[in-house]
């Protein structure tokens, strides 16, 4: 799947004091908390207030969330779907009740190798699992293609249209 786009947002840097200038002075090793020091950019060295708006470090990362959703989708499509109810859905049931179900025509792609979520029409468990997994992959390829292509341009301040 075409999922490899640049991740422009740097991981939110927690403003820990140890990252500031203090580590440069190798001589004295007591932890000086952001004391205006000997290096050029000492103006920044004042202790920073905790950033309330910074993203919560304990939250799930985007990548982790994507992996979890992908895994859940695969488990559903290739596993849980095996146990799906086979009774007609609401529309099919209504069509039978009202007597217009006979009007249904076969889809033009009814002979497709994945028609009816069965690999090549096999009713085997493996064929159905594979069809579900392939469906997830195909949907992912199309969806990521579409959304990658049409997302807002990453260029700065795109107030266009």
């Amino acid at each position, binding site marked *: 799947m075409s999922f490899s786009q640049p991740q422009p947002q740097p991981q939110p840097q927690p403003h820990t004091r140890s990252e500031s200038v203090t580590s440069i002075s190798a001589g004295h090793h007591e932890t000086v908390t952001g004391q205006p020091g000997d290096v050029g950019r000492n103006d920044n060295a004042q202790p920073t207030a905790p950033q309330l708006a910074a993203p919560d470090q304990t939250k799930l990362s985007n990548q982790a969330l994507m992996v979890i959703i992908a895994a859940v*989708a695969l488990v559903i499509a290739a596993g849980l779907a095996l146990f799906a109810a086979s*009774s007609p859905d609401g529309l099919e049931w209504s069509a039978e009740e009202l007597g217009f179900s006979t009007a249904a025509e076969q*889809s033009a792609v009814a002979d497709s190798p994945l028609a009816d979520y069965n690999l090549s029409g096999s009713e085997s468990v493996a064929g159905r699992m594979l069809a579900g997994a392939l469906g997830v992959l195909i949907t992912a390829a199309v969806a990521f293609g579409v959304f990658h292509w049409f997302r807002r341009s990453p260029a700065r301040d795109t107030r266009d249209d």
Partner: protein
Amino acid sequence: MHIPDGFIDAPVSAAAGVVAVAAIALSLKGAKRELDDASAPLAGMTAVFIFAAQMVNFPVGAGTSGHLIGAALAAILIGPYAAVLAMTVVLVVQALVFADGGLSALGLNVSNLAVVSVAVAWLVFWAGARSMTQSRAKVLVLAFLAGFTSVLAAAGAFVLEYALGGTMPLEFSAVAATMLGVHTVIGVAEGIITALIVGAVLAVRPDLIFGLRFFQRGTDPTLSAELQVSA
């Protein structure tokens, strides 16, 4: 609720195709405002999840079953325009690859399940959010209502299409009563599943839920500060 070929005549199917194409064009434009580098992958994943979830029919009694549509879920998570696109991707893959839903009926299915149901779900959620401050309970209730109404709206759209172009003559009231009746039950399930999934995302990454930004600027200490700033 995927319509096969043969239920609705060609003119109405074609008209629905025009509606679908127009809505997709509008959504391609609108989605650029909803999606950025961070949310575009989530939109793709939403489509993937909905494809998988739609495979799982659950029994709703009386020998019938339903499955998640996902239009409300998508609208709340990624915004209405991106949701139209996500639902369309799912429906196109289903119709072309899995013979689920007819080819000549694709415009009908996109109109009902991607356009009408997303639009109604979004209106319900958005109108609710605008009128109240945010809390977890309100988000879940609105998600339920959005899911419930989206299914009834899609069923209602089919009833109208059948009245205009049904291939077998039937009483309008009979089609309406049967379709809306069974989909009321399915809609409850849709609402529950929508609320459960929105609740799960709310627990781990509320910042990713598009719909939250429309709540009145309020003060729910359980939700992160950045959301309320972005409102």
